[in-house]
């Protein structure tokens, strides 16, 4: 039993859990904020130009996260 406890890389396990949760929260938050800016405020039919620009900025940040995921996935890049 003690050898089993030592065999487990607890640090790697904690790191994987923390990074997975943090990455999901960050991506979901970026998407949620982008969605907020694209959505027209009450009483208006269409979102204003500055709101749309902000929406695109947050969408772009999300695209950067996706690009980083692709970078990790493709061994050619690292």
């Amino acid at each position, binding site marked *: 039993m003690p050898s089993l406890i030592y065999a487990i*890389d607890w640090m790697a396990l904690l790191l994987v859990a923390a990074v997975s949760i943090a990455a*999901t929260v960050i991506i979901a938050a970026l*998407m949620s904020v982008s969605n907020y800016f694209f*959505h027209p405020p009450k009483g208006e039919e269409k979102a204003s130009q500055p709101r749309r620009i902000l929406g695109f900025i947050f969408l772009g940040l999300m695209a950067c996260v996706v690009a980083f995921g692709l970078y990790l996935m493709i*061994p050619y890049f690292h």
Partner: protein
Amino acid sequence: MSVELIILIVVITALIFDFTNGFHDAANAMATCVATGAFKPKMAVLLAAIMNLIGAFLSTNVAKTISGGIVDDQLITPQTVFAALVGAILWNLLTWLFGLPSSSSHAIFGALIGAVLVQAGLIGIHFSTVASKILLPALVAPVVAGVASYLGTKIAYKGKHNLPKESKKRYRNAQRVSSLLVALSHGTSDGQKTMGIITLVLVAGTLQLGGDQMPWWGQAPGTGPHWWVILSAGIAIALGTYSGGWRIMRTMGKGMAEIEPPQGFAAETAGMSCILASSHLGFGLSTTHIVSGAIMGTGLARTPEEVRWNTAKRMLIAWGLTLPAAALVGGLAAWVAHFGSWGFLVVLAVLVIGSVTIKIVSSKNHVSHENVNDSHEVTVLAKAAISSVTETIPNPLAPALPEEIADHPLAASPLRLTGLKPRPKPKVPKKKKTPPKSKKKKQRKAAQQKAAVAKAQEHEAAREKAAKAKAAKEKAAATRAAKAAKAKEVNDA
């Protein structure tokens, strides 16, 4: 049996395992997309297959060991690998039949453990590695992915229960991207796994043959996979994915919880994050366990009362059984294959017969791209639900129905005579047609005109009636006067 023939059979079996791996894991990437309608079912599996194929070509850094240290690799021969593949294929097919998502990697590790146990006994198994690389990750993966997905869903919905239609549309697009990334990562990891198995078998076969000249398929230790190994492994996993694995797709997409596009996005993003973190930070987690946990997490975040715990329980049982059941089949296969060529052929025959039997049983309650979203359950031996009955045979013993309901579609139901109440069609409130504004105006004007004409006609009729009455009155008075005059004349006379 010659070494070449054994190698050929093992390579073909490895490709079949790769195919089953594809259709078993297609649901990991696309189940949520199919359930939320982000992709049509056929399009979903086509795109996942393409991403798998690309993934298989992107990463060809095959593992240096088949087992990753869970067994003593020096004990592994082509026969052991064959037995392990047979065990893994049969377990994959059996869990597919019941629509249960289980890890293909755990199936092959389990079968390998069984085969090595038969060959070398307990000494060949590294139990601490089994616990740290298989058992603990199986417990951790769904929890981590579930928590990530739960938080992602809460953020997406911002505490509300529903989102506007436009927002859902945007989330649907984001969900498509995250699902495709999951499919790509599946291609890089699992395609690579089969390439590794084939490469190691080719190396073992070359060493077994010895001699000065290397055969065309031969491979020296430490070299990368042949181009035809990469191509065939990529095509096998892509074909497997394209074939769909609709039974598992139904369980993952509909069986655990009813999900919407923002939830699908949260689940796939959590899945993606966990897969990438686990493969780059040194603690490998199974994709199937990750995505299943993520779907449960998203279901709990939005509609906890609608999560189907029964399906989750069945899934957990399947996960728990994967290792011992695959080990049992792998061990039996290794024991039979140990008897030489005849044993080898018997194992091959069992694999073929077992696979065909499972396919035949599955066809009794067929699940395909056409009916994948019709139900949340995968039935094996029980009769399919009424919603999936497409053809009904008229029963000659059925009592005649009254004429007015004889034409109703439910009148042909096979359940009519069994005493079961056929499920009535849901009532859809009929929408009243509201004509456009200009049309409404025209109609009002026409009605007013009609009313005016009717009023005028009524007035005219009343006037005519009055005139007639007056004329009749005058006539009567005249007649009366004439009569009186006549009577007077008679009297006078």
